[in-house]
């Protein structure tokens, strides 16, 4: 979707405010949002891609005004209600008003270490061959899907070179919308800054973007 989350190349957001010594969390509620979002992972019936789409679907003005963990909180609440884990009334009151949804094993304290270090690889095995080879020139398609996509606006309709082949990975554009993993070949594609932004770039600058095969066509 062409939302405000797709920020590459935008102007007007001001300087990068760097905190010299930054704590991992800035408040207890941030700790809670982080922990609850992580702990819900093992019993959630939605994908990480659906989660990301939920965050980018926060209305633009609210997205831009919310802090990072506020966005996590808004997105989590939306998912919990949408998927029937809690009702809007329960969310408003903070009290359970009916039976819980049937879920699998809840994450226990003694299992956190294993859970944190466990692998959730997005690569999938395949018997297909990649459609493009390293060094090949491609052009990104000019697509504007209203759903989740990983082809940023700033990189649409541009020429690039295949730099790396990452293997076959789950396709977020379908996986975010309950349409299955539909894995595809994934590439790191190199774009010159001149191609993306015009000629006023000092020195040699390139931008590399990880892109799925269906975003690309032979140049």
């Amino acid at each position, binding site marked *: 979707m062409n939302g405000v989350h797709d*920020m*590459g*190349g935008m102007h007007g957001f001001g*300087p*990068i*405010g*760097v905190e010299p010594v*930054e704590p*991992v969390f*800035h*408040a207890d*509620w941030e700790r*809670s949002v*982080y*922990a*609850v979002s992580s*702990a*819900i992972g093992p019993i959630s019936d939605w994908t990480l891609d659906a989660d*990301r789409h939920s*965050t*980018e679907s926060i209305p633009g003005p609210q997205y831009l005004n919310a802090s*990072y963990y506020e966005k996590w*909180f808004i997105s989590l609440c939306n998912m*919990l209600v949408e998927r029937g*884990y*809690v009702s809007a009334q329960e*969310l408003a009151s*903070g*009290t*359970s008003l009916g039976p*819980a949804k049937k879920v699998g094993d*809840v*994450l*226990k*304290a003694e299992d956190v270490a294993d859970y*944190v*270090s466990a*692998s*959730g*690889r*997005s690569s999938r095995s395949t018997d297909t061959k990649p459609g493009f080879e390293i060094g090949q020139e491609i052009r990104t398609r000019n697509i504007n899907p209203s759903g989740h996509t*990983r082809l*940023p606006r*700033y*990189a649409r309709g541009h020429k690039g070179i295949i730099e790396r082949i*990452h293997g076959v*990975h789950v396709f*977020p554009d379908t996986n975010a919308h309950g349409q299955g993993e539909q894995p595809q070949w*994934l590439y790191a594609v190199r774009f010159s800054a001149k191609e*993306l932004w015009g000629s006023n770039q*000092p*020195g*040699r*600058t*390139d*931008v*590399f*973007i*990880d*892109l799925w095969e269906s975003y690309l066509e032979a140049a």
Partner: protein
Amino acid sequence: MSKSHDHHHHGEGSELPDIALRVKSLESLLIEKGYVDPEALDVLIETYETKVGPRNGAAVVARSWLDEEFRKQLIEDASAAAGSLGFTGRQGEHLVALENTPDTHNMVVCTLCSCYPWPVLGLPPVWYKSAPYRSRAVADPRGVLEEFGVNMPDETAVRVWDSTAEIRYMVIPMRPEGTQDWSEEDLAQLVTRDSMIGTGLALTPDQLEAAKTP
């Protein structure tokens, strides 16, 4: 409309207690429903506040500076190399290490959200997740570097990596001069979080000394 009128009178910081209350309310609801275990929440927080952080990545970089075999493995398969030091897991399943050289400087961003290699760097800092960095890193990386106090000469190629998939990138900064006889532990102290995102360089011995002096 009356709501925005009310807010007008609350002044600075009025949003914070509100969100704190709402989060508390959600947390207790989820505990009551049996979806989350409060003890697990505490362990999750402790893990990312004390165990998983940029010291992990610094150990990986320092090892690569001293051990050529390890360096090769890191370039070949960074998940396996970091995993051999015990750094595996969520948001690091497909780790790729990008080596800075005198000719090439690498820098990592996630323009669409906040993708970041958790097992080696921990949770990302606020600026990494914020609009100014996400918008400008791809279009004006040299300007961004200047804002971080790094003046990259025009002769050095700058490579920006936009993490749009599940591949997680970490930068291997160049080893500073004057560190020939240093131990792995001492070298790791030179490796800052920003040097592994690519918005900084590894500290020089002098900079480290200055940072230690109160």
